[in-house]
């Protein structure tokens, strides 16, 4: 590839962080489906790439009480994990909308989150699932868990320092909530112009717990707490659902770009919230 760069392949977490710290101008890479494209477009010019693909601690899905998804786990491999798909269907739904087969065989869970595009498809489902991100800080190598809702700071900006390394997505055992994910695109393989994930714990038509998150309609993927407050503790009658739709429209801050105008993105966010609630009210018990 034009520009030339060095390509390092560490075989352990320690090696990865050590080599990263001592290699000036280096970037971590896993699937490369975002970073390589930006490099080709001249938007990023790292002197070296530190590949995470051969660090065993970073790949794989483990279920024991909590579920841990290694950040370098490919999306395609996640979809082949039957337990993951069964326990967290909203996450699997989002994964099947990502790119195409080829992209899903390269791209990783960690890459989607750490790239931190406002459109990140995995963010809305992980936000409603209350996911945490396990991060190994560069200094002293201590590991800490960050709630995902605190992780995104701005478009393509996260809480990670330059040599920090996100190691796993951590999910608690699934609750009794019902979930659904909607994503609006122009064509099959496209960035979302609006996406919404909803989790409801229902007792008949009474909502005990509501989690609502949206992507592509604000500088970061985020929970829509205002919508959650409309729904939680309430009987979900039609007027209330329409109120939630209205609040959803008002509480997002979409941009206008080549994919869609801001008014349309607001409109779709509201529609998705309403449709999600209607769908979950009518859905089979999990």
């Amino acid at each position, binding site marked *: 590839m034009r520009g030339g*760069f060095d390509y390092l392949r560490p075989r352990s977490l320690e090696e990865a962080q050590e080599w990263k710290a001592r290699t000036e101008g280096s970037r971590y890479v896993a699937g490369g489906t975002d970073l390589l494209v930006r490099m080709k477009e001249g938007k990023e010019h790292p002197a070296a790439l530190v590949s995470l693909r051969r660090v065993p601690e970073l790949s794989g899905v483990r279920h024991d009480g909590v579920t841990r998804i290694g950040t370098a786990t490919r999306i395609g491999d996640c979809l082949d994990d039957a337990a993951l798909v069964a326990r967290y269907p909203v996450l699997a739904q989002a994964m099947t909308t990502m790119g195409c087969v*080829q992209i899903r065989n390269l791209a990783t869970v960690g890459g989607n989150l750490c790239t931190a595009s406002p459109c990140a498809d995995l963010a809305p489902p992980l936000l409603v699932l209350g996911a945490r991100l396990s991060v190994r800080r560069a200094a002293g190598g201590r590991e800490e868990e960050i709630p995902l809702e605190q992780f995104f700071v701005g478009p393509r900006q996260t809480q990670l320092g330059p040599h920090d390394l996100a190691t796993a997505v951590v999910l608690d055992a699934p609750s009794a909530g019902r979930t659904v994910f909607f994503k609006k695109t122009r064509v099959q393989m496209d960035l979302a112009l609006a996406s919404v994930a909803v989790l409801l714990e229902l007792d008949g038509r009474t909502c005990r717990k509501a989690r609502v998150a949206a992507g592509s309609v604000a500088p970061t993927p985020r929970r829509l707490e205002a919508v959650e407050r409309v729904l939680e503790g309430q009987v979900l009658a039609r007027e209330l659902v329409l109120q939630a739709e209205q609040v959803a429209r008002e509480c997002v801050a979409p941009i206008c770009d080549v994919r869609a105008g801001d008014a349309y993105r607001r409109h779709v966010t509201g529609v998705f919230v309403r449709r999600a609630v209607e769908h979950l009210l009518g859905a089979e018990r999990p």
Partner: protein
Amino acid sequence: MKHSLAFVLNGSPIVCAVAPSDLLLETLRDELGLTGTKEGCGRGECGACTVLLDGRPVNSCLLPALEVEGREVTTIEGLARGHELSDVQQAFVERGGIQCGFCSPGMILSVQALLARSADPKEDEIRAALVGNLCRCTGYVQIVESVKAAAERRRGRP
């Protein structure tokens, strides 16, 4: 500085020299002379550069060559046996799934991978599997028919 890269290409072990910044697409075409794999967009959107990595379709335009060390790569050149086309290739020829041919190597490899996982794919499943392979000529209709024909032929064989 070049690195030595050892991997399995179309069933045979191979060693070649690559720069750290070489992408697999470049290595296949420029170093190894295997020009069946095409560059369409260079961004992972069109699928013309699709190859199979350990049997799974990937965009070779986004994959650093060094990443295939010790792994198995299948390109379109690996499907035929001498002059005998594979069953998928034959189905595409017979059913008009190939017009200009530019998307065909990537398309056929994606189909190869699909049929390895799914013996009787319905239209929805076929189209979902081929989202990442764009074709400007066929409108995809004959491609879907080619896939169904290849699948049927395979099911008919013991």
